């Protein structure tokens, strides 16, 4: 029983974040942080509109999709960037910026938050997701 539970907890998940809206970033950060602190191997890929939020100095301000975004702002909901950092610090998660999005933005690794890993392309992404669940936001 113990072994079975351990195996389940150890499953790898890949979180692909495409959207730059608050609700989706928040949901992705919650999933990544809780999975990471539960002993799961977590890989997060940040692409498209999600990536600019991880340029150094950018805050956790993000456009809302609907009323939940406004409500979350008014309440004391943990900021998504803080949750991603906790996923790394407390659970060993790794966050990777999409190399294509970096090229389009015209930025290098040094302009991104220090806690992001190396620029990652689709081939690497496909290799990473081979043995894990994929969650897309």
């Amino acid at each position, binding site marked *: 029983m113990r072994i079975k539970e351990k195996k389940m907890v150890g499953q790898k998940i890949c979180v692909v974040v495409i959207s730059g809206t608050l609700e989706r970033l928040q949901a992705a950060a*919650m999933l990544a*942080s809780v999975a990471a*602190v539960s*002993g799961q191997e977590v890989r997060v890929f940040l692409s498209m509109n999600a990536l600019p939020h991880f340029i150094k100095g950018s805050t956790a301000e993000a456009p809302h999709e609907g009323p939940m975004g406004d409500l979350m702002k008014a309440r004391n*909901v*943990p900021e998504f960037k803080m949750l991603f950092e906790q996923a790394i610090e*407390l659970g060993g998660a790794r966050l990777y910026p999409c190399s294509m999005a970096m090229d389009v933005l015209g930025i290098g690794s040094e302009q991104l938050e220090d806690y992001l890993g190396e620029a990652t392309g689709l081939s690497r992404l496909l290799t990473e997701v081979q043995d894990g669940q994929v969650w897309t936001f």
Partner: protein
Amino acid sequence: MTERKIVDGRGSFCPGPLMELIVALKHSQVGDELEVLSTDKGSADDIPEWVRRVGHDYVSTTENDGVWHIVVRKTK
């Protein structure tokens, strides 16, 4: 010697209280009990599930005036 530490997660929302518990667990000894205070019902439901998943001991949950007290014992 074991002790009970209070982890005050009141006013925060999921997964804030859980994250605060995890930070506190890192700074605790095996056998210590931690009591999480949460005003978020979702966290009160989810923290025992996390405790079972990772293998610490779940001791109890009580609710008093809108504050949940979730007690956990560190096992490893």
